[in-house]
C-alpha cells in the first residue's frame, strides 16, 4: 500500500523547478554532513586505536590509522580484568535479555487481549510507575534489603520488565487479527498454546526490536553496576572502561595538574582501543538488526 502511495506521489509531483533542485542539493548535502558527524567520532576512535601514539600526538589521525600498530588492542585483550568484565557483560546481556523477554511477553500478551476484564486497571497500575517513583535512595535500599548487593542479580532483576517495552509489545500483539484466535480456539487451542504457537512466531520484528533494546541496555549498563557492585570481579565492561577513561580525563582536562603529577598517563591509543573494544559487539550486531528494529519501533510508536 505504501509503495502504491509513493508511486502516486511521484506521478503527481510537478516538474522540477530551480527551487526544487536547490532544495534537493541543500537537503542531501546537509543530511550527508549530519550523518558524517554521527559517524566521524567512531571512525576517529577506531583510527586512534590502531595508530601510534606519536602520530596521535602530532594530530595527524583523522579517520585512517597512521603508523598502524596492534599493541594497544593487544594490551586491552591481554588485560585479565578487561576480559573478566567482558565475561560479566556477556553473561548479564544473555541471561538478562532472555529473562526480560520472557517476562515482558508474559505481561504484554494478556494486556493485548481486548476481551480481558480489568486490563485497563492493570495498564494504569503500570503507567503510574512511569510517572512517579520513589527515587534512587529507596530503590537502592530495597535492592540492598533483598540481599542483591554485589550479585549479578542486581543488574538483571530490578530492570526485569520495562513498562515502556510492554506497551510497545502489547501494541504489536494487538495488530494480530482476532480471527486467527477464533480459528485457533475452534481448533481447540488454549490461550497459552495460541501465544506460543501463533502469536510469537508472527512477532519476529517486534521481538527483535524489544530484544535489541534490552540487550543494548544490558551491554551499556553502567550506573546500576556502580550503585550495586563493589567487587571488582563483578564489574561489567562499562565500569571497567570508565575506570580506565577516568584516569585519562585527568590528563585532558587538568593539563596543569597533570604536569605536577605524572602518575596517570594513559596512552592515547590505549584509551581508544578500550572504547573500540567495548563498542565492537554492538557495531557487529547492529547492521543485522537495524532493518527490524526500525520497523518494530515504528509499529510500536504509531498507536502507542
Amino acid at each position: 500500500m505504501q509503495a502504491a502511495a509513493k508511486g502516486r506521489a511521484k506521478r503527481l509531483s510537478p516538474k522540477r523547478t530551480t527551487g526544487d533542485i536547490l532544495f534537493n542539493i541543500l537537503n542531501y548535502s546537509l543530511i550527508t554532513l549530519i550523518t558524517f558527524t554521527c559517524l566521524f567520532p567512531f571512525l576517529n576512535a577506531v583510527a586512534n586505536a590502531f595508530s601510534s601514539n606519536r602520530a596521535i600526538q602530532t594530530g595527524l589521525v583523522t579517520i585512517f590509522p597512521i603508523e598502524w600498530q596492534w599493541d594497544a588492542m593487544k594490551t586491552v585483550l591481554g588485560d585479565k580484568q578487561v576480559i573478566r568484565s567482558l565475561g560479566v557483560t556477556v553473561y548479564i546481556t544473555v541471561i538478562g535479555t532472555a529473562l526480560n523477554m520472557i517476562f515482558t511477553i508474559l505481561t504484554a500478551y494478556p494486556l493485548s487481549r481486548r476481551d480481558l476484564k480489568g486490563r485497563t486497571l492493570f495498564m494504569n497500575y503500570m503507567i503510574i510507575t512511569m510517572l512517579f517513583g520513589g527515587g534512587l535512595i529507596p530503590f537502592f535500599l530495597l535492592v540492598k534489603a533483598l540481599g542483591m548487593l554485589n550479585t549479578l542479580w542486581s543488574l538483571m532483576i530490578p530492570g526485569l520488565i520495562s513498562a515502556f517495552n510492554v506497551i510497545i509489545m502489547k501494541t504489536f500483539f494487538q495488530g494480530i487479527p482476532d480471527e486467527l484466535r477464533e480459528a485457533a480456539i475452534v481448533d481447540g487451542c488454549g490461550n497459552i498454546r495460541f501465544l506460543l504457537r501463533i502469536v510469537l512466531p508472527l512477532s519476529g520484528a517486534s521481538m527483535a526490536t524489544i530484544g535489541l533494546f534490552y540487550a543494548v541496555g544490558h551491554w551499556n549498563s553502567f550506573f546500576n553496576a556502580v550503585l550495586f557492585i563493589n567487587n571488582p570481579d563483578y564489574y561489567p565492561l562499562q565500569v571497567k572502561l570508565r575506570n580506565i577513561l577516568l584516569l585519562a580525563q585527568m590528563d585532558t582536562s587538568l593539563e596543569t595538574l597533570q604536569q605536577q603529577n605524572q602518575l596517570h598517563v594513559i596512552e592515547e591509543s590505549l584509551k581508544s582501543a578500550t572504547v573500540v573494544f567495548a563498542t565492537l559487539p554492538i557495531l557487529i550486531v547492529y547492521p543485522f538488526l537495524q532493518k527490524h528494529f526500525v520497523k518494530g519501533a515504528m509499529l510500536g510508536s504509531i498507536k502507542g
Partner: protein
Amino acid sequence: MEARSASLTEIRETEVPAKMKPLHKELRKNYDLYLLLVPGFLFFLLFSYVPMFGLLIAFKDYNLFKGVFASDWAGLTHFREMLKIPAFWQMVRNTLTLNVLGLIFGFPAPIILALMLNEIRAKYFKRISQSLLYLPHFMSWIVLGGIVYNLLSPKYGIVNELLRQLGFNEIYFMADKSWWIAVYTLTGVWAGAGWGTIIYLAAMTSIDPSLYEAAVMDGAGRFRKIWHITIPGIMPTVVVLLILTIGHMVSIGIEQPMALTNPVVTDVSEVISTYIYSVGIKQGQFGLTTAVGMVQSVINLCLVLGANYAAKRMGREGIW
C-alpha cells in the same frame, strides 16, 4: 465478533446458576491469562510501589538497623535542612539550565531532521543515512564520553588541531565552564536527534497522501507542502513528546553528567541526580537525599499533569 461473544455469554448466563458472579466466570475462562499477569504485577509492586513507600525515609531519621518502619520520625527536618544547603540551589539551577538548553536545542532537532529525511527520495541513501544517524543512541554514555574527551582534548584532539590550523588558540572545552555547558548540550542533541526521528517519521507515513495531491493541485511547492501538511500532520505527536519531555524537566539522567563531568567544572555539572548519588549513597545521608529525590519526583509529576492539562486546554490531545 463482539456482538456474537456477547450473545454467547448471555445464553450461558441462563444456564449457569444465578449465584455465579461474572467475575468468577471471567476468571475461569481466562484464568491462564491472569496467571501470566502475576509476575508483572509482583514486579511492579516490588520494584516500583515499594520504593514509593520508601519515600517515608524522607520524614524519618533513617537507621540502618531499624529499617524504614521502625526508624524514628523526623518530621520535616530533612526538607528544612535541604533548603539550607548552598549546594542545593546550585544543583537545582544546573539541572534546570542543562534541561532547558537540552529542550531548546534537543527538542526541535529530531523534528527538523525528520522533515529533511522525509523529503529524500533516494531509497538507499535514506536507509544508510538513517542507520548511521541512529548509531550514537546505541552507545553508552561512557563510550560517548570517552570519545568526546578524545575529540576535544586540547593537546591531541582533532577539533583543537583544526582550530590551530585555522590560526586560533586551542580551547579547553571540558575545563571551561561555559564551554562545558555547550558541549553537554550539543552532545545530548548529537546522541539523541537521529533516534528521535523514528517516531516523527512514523507519524509522517500515516499522513493521508491525498492531502499532498490536493495541495499539488492547488499549486503548492515543497515548502508549502511541508508547512501546511507535514507539520500539522505530526503536531499531535509533537505535543505528546513535548509533554513527556517537560515532565522530565527537573530530573536528569545520571549517566551523561557522570560521563562528561570532571573536577574543574563541578560548579556547573553537579545536578540533582549526581548529588543524590554522591551524598546519599556514598556518604549515607539517606533521609536528606530521599527528601531531595521526593521533591524532584513530585515536581516532575506536577509538570506532566500541568503540561497535559495545558495541551488539552489548547484543544490538543494530551497523553491520556
